[in-house]
């Protein structure tokens, strides 16, 4: 039991939260802009933005190393500026955001596509700014899809393992997340620690799912 500490919980939560905030805004805007593109460009963008969902997480991790690794131009440049992603918890944010992004993007785009475009047109002819139309009309009327996408992305970010372990590895008190800790504990035969973390992980996931169900139930109640 001496190996047990709560750092991985805190680290996982901050990585997942920051990643979710990043995904929320990028997903929202990219979903909005891709929807308006001409057909061919839309298809291409859609494939690129969805790719991380179907690629093995380790491949995603490797791609991130190719970009942000210290031996590669951008990674080296950032390192010189004092920004470190490789083998650092900030890299965990990057990995989680990269892998979980398509969930937010696709769910939000689906919601935007079923949005009645006349509402946006009506807003514009009434003199409302594009900004107002987006934040006060489009987003609130697509909120179910957007919330679902955000929760899914958060859950995925929280459980990210493959890309994370490639980019930031595992070191206690610096980069350890719940999922890398479980893997490490099991590798070292430390089954009690692994089990505790499995329990914590199940608890968090259950809370997220219950939250989704309560929210969906409320929505249905209003509609009926």
């Amino acid at each position: 039991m001496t190996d047990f500490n709560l750092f991985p919980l805190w680290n996982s939560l901050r990585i997942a939260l920051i990643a979710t905030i990043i995904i929320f805004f990028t997903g929202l805007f990219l979903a909005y802009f891709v929807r308006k593109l001409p057909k061919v460009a839309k298809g291409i963008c859609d494939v690129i933005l969805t790719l991380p969902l179907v690629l093995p997480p380790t491949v995603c991790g490797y791609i991130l190393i190719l970009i942000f690794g210290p031996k590669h131009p951008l990674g080296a440049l950032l390192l010189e500026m004092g920004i470190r992603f490789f083998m650092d918890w900030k890299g965990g944010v990057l990995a989680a955001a990269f892998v979980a992004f398509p969930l937010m993007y696709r769910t939000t785009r689906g919601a935007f596509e079923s949005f009645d475009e006349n509402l946006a047109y009506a807003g514009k002819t009434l003199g409302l700014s594009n900004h107002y139309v987006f934040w006060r009309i489009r987003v609130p009327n697509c909120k179910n899809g957007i919330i679902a996408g955000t929760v899914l992305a958060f859950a995925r970010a929280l459980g990210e393992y493959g890309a994370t372990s490639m980019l930031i590895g595992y070191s206690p008190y610096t980069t350890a997340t719940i999922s890398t800790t479980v893997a490490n504990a099991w590798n070292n035969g430390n089954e009690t620690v692994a089990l505790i973390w499995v329990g914590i992980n199940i608890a968090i996931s259950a809370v997220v799912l219950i939250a989704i169900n309560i929210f969906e139930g409320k929505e249905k109640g209003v509609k009926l």
Partner: protein
Amino acid sequence: MSLIVRIKKDFGSFKLDVNFSNEGGVRSLLGASGAGKSLTLKCIAGIIKPDEGYIELNGRVLFDSENKINLSPQKRHIGYMFQNYALFPNMNVYQNIMTGLHSSKELSKEEKINRVNEIIKSFQLEGLEKHKIDEISGGQSQRVALARIMVADPEIILLDEPFSALDEHLRTKLEMDMKEFLSKFAKDVILVTHNRDEAYVLSNETSIIDKGSVVVSKPTKELFKNPEYLSAAILTGCKNNVRCEVKDSHHIYIPEWGLELKTKQEISKDISYIGIRAHNFSLTRGDFSSEVKDVEVVEQPFEYLVRFRFKNQKEDTPKVLWLVTKDTKLDESKIKSISFNEDSILLLK
């Protein structure tokens, strides 16, 4: 008050090429669904950008492809009522109407509140302010949509099929309400509809739109009297339209009906169809009389529908339709001859 519209847009399989102008008052754009009526409204409102053309409202250029002018929808000051009313479901009635004033910089907050309350009163929406959009009726939704438009003080109102989202039994009353409202609105109104009754009741002028272009524009009552074009005759509700051959200036031959008519008025060479409205036949007297066959009487709630063929008409051609009021005594087997007057013949291009 004036609106000039001269626009072209190529949608690939469909080409929009619309030309008309309005000098105040209500103009209907009457056309079948898919004719390009709503697209025209969207171009006027700045939602769709035409490939080329010119749009001017009260002397203000909204769109001019030559001089690269294309005002945003926000700057056009157009009141656009959508087919489904496009009320914002995330806001209540009061908030919906308030959006019409949101971007106004001239009014103080207090003035805005007063103006919204005034409008709510004049559209009889008091007591509904806090209601969500899905809690009000179709008629109320229409009033909220109009109130939201009017609070922004638009320079023109565009109405896209204003009654199509409503139940049939509500329409007549709401048409009357709309007529009263429009008579008070002194600026231009463009009414898009596929319903000839709406066009007839609500508009002074009508433009017929068919396959993306304006076929004919005329004062509404004149258009119904003399539609001039086949598509206009169909859209104004003429049920019997057939091809004809102009033999000379006083003779037309109608091949499908096997009829030759000698007319008093002169017939121009470019006439290629004739139409006769279903109400314009009679049993007794008329300028033309013809023996008929295959007579069939169908009773409708308030009228009889008589379907028949002229004596020389071929079996495989559609029957002629005649609507008769119920006070006429009809006996299917005794209808041997039917007549109509020369002035009820619509000469169509």
